[in-house]
């Protein structure tokens, strides 16, 4: 039966195939008219949302979860898609049969050292082509947008997003040049705020991009990250600012006498990361970093960030999601 389906798919796909070189430098045969696409992980799935949300055959995890509040902004139809898991974190991969059943034409994979070859291995020879893109690195996002524009035959869209990404990158580069004394940042994760990411981790490199320094110097050991940090080492290092992901932790940090010993908490330099419609900085790491890093830079260095941040947020939501954001809506998404 499976073989029949395979043959059927092969026959169907050879007609309008075109050769594409993906961002990992591999040549892949891809059908011309893409109407059934799967993202291997949330970072790449959200990229498809930018170009052709109606082509998605499924999601990797629910649109709304503790780290992402998708349904406020994203297309309501996305909520009806099945959850097919994916290759990321410890998710364990998506099922090849389910993808075949949904006649998936293409998997858009995440070019990541921790994930390489996992997808092909678990497809067990099922004939679904995989192409790799760079969904999280801000420097590579312009190329990613142009690549996807070509792939989905929406070059103009790709170009618009790419040139926005380039503007943001050069804006941040000149901000970094202007910052004489970089602030030190502690990136607090987990319900107690005592997990963090290493300074070289792809989960935290936006800190450097915003012109600051991550106080947690270590080597990323796994895709998941979340290394434990002792409170004592925070006391010893006294970060200038604290970035918080967990909502409940943010709500308690100012009342906790222990955290009150940190200068950053005393000075209220504790910032909650927005999560609408996708986490602005990480988990998943995505193109949202284009606005998230600007928000971080504007928050840490108001004197160096020249644009009007609120106007920039509105512009971003308009360009990326086609949504005109109301004042009240924008304010709400910044609150924990």
């Amino acid at each position, binding site marked *: 039966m499976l073989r029949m389906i395979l043959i059927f798919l092969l026959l169907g796909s050879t007609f309008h195939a075109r050769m594409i070189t993906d961002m990992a430098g591999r040549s892949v045969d891809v059908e011309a008219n893409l109407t059934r696409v799967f993202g291997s992980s*949330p970072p790449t799935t959200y990229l498809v949302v930018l170009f052709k949300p109606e082509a998605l055959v499924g999601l990797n*995890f629910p649109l709304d*979860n*503790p*780290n992402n509040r998708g349904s406020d902004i994203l297309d309501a139809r996305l909520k009806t898609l099945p959850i097919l898991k994916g290759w*990321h*974190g*410890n*998710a*364990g991969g998506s099922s090849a049969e389910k993808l075949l059943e949904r006649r998936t034409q293409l998997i858009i994979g995440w070019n990541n050292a921790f994930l390489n070859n996992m997808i092909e291995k678990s497809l067990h020879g099922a004939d679904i082509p995989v192409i790799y893109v760079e969904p999280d690195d801000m420097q590579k996002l312009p190329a990613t947008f142009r690549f996807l524009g070509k792939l989905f035959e929406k070059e103009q869209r790709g170009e618009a997003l790419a040139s926005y990404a380039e503007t943001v990158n050069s804006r941040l580069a000149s901000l970094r040049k202007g910052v004489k004394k970089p602030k030190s940042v502690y990136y607090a994760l*987990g*319900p*107690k705020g*005592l*997990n*963090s990411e*290493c300074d070289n981790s792809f989960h935290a490199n936006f800190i450097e991009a915003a012109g600051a320094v991550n*106080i*947690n*110097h*270590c080597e990323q050991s796994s895709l*998941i*990250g*979340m*290394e*434990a*940090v*002792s*409170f*004592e*080492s925070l*006391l*010893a*290092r006294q970060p200038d600012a604290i970035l918080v992901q967990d909502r*409940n932790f943010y709500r308690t940090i100012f009342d906790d006498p*222990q955290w009150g*010993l940190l200068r950053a908490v005393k000075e209220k330099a504790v910032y909650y990361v927005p999560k609408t419609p996708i986490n602005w900085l990480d*988990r*998943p790491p995505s193109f949202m970093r284009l606005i998230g890093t600007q928000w971080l830079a504007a928050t840490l260095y108001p004197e160096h960030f020249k644009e009007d941040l609120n106007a920039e947020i509105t512009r971003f939501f308009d360009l990326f999601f086609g949504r005109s954001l109301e004042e009240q809506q924008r304010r709400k998404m910044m609150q924990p």
Partner: protein
Amino acid sequence: MSRTLSISALTGVLVLSMLLALGIGKYPIGLDTWSALLQGTAPDIAGSVVFELRLPRIIAAVLVGAALSVSGAAFQSMFVNPLVSPSLLGVLAGASFGSALGILLSESWFVVQLLTFAFGGIAVLFAMGIALMYRGSGILILVLGGIISTSLFTSLLSVIKYTADPYDQLPSIVYWLMGSFALVERSTLLGVALPMLLGIATLMLLSKYLNVLSMGDDEARALGVNVRWIRIAAITAATLISSLTVVTAGVIGWVGLVIPHIARMAVGPDNRLLIPTSALLGGTYLLLVDTLSRTMFDSEIPIGILTSLVGIPAFVIILRNAKKGWG
């Protein structure tokens, strides 16, 4: 004579290690600050580092190390098997499942701890329930019950891992299962310390009977010992304290298997001496490993990884030089 001598020597080593651990850490505390601390005039931060951060953690490490080793020693005598660890009847598997379930269902840490403790007990009750269905078949069926219970709760844990959100809950679960003292707080410690101490004390009081049990059920009965009740009491105490170790610091393997071994090589199989020795050795060992874990790098190494990395070579060396065997 040598008995009191070795116990007091080990106690001395433990106290010295605790003082040492209190003195080192990431936050630098100078000699003058220490003398100010003793007079109560030190700045807030130094006092907080010593009394809120280091001291609870040190006490927790010692208690958990002692609890795991003592319950390991008790299990090894009860089952007359040197390869047995406290996890034999499923307590660690059950507690791990409970933690994971808690992390999945609730944002409250208290709920996580409660479920951890509850499922540690439930797993052991399940194992004993299986054994009870075959009344009279003795210890073998109890071990089998433990194997079944362990694999049941391990599978249930996998189900939880499968359903958890990979970006948020899953990392927390994986991290917790590797064990860490980084999250120990004074309030948790206040809740678990007394029951842990009581559990350890109970096993010490039972040590005389455990000696009899290790000769085999029939001989024990012949000597007039109520095998069943002694075993139930020992299992209950060991389960209680093992479950509480997971509540305090996640799953820490290897200690409960190896420390009793080392203790037995040092002082022989008499539980009256073996159990206190295990407690002191285990407490010292876990304290030293945790001190390493919190001082070596910027971010901490999960202690479950270190206990094996440090423990295995030590065990191999000791095994080579072993003079005193089992029984």
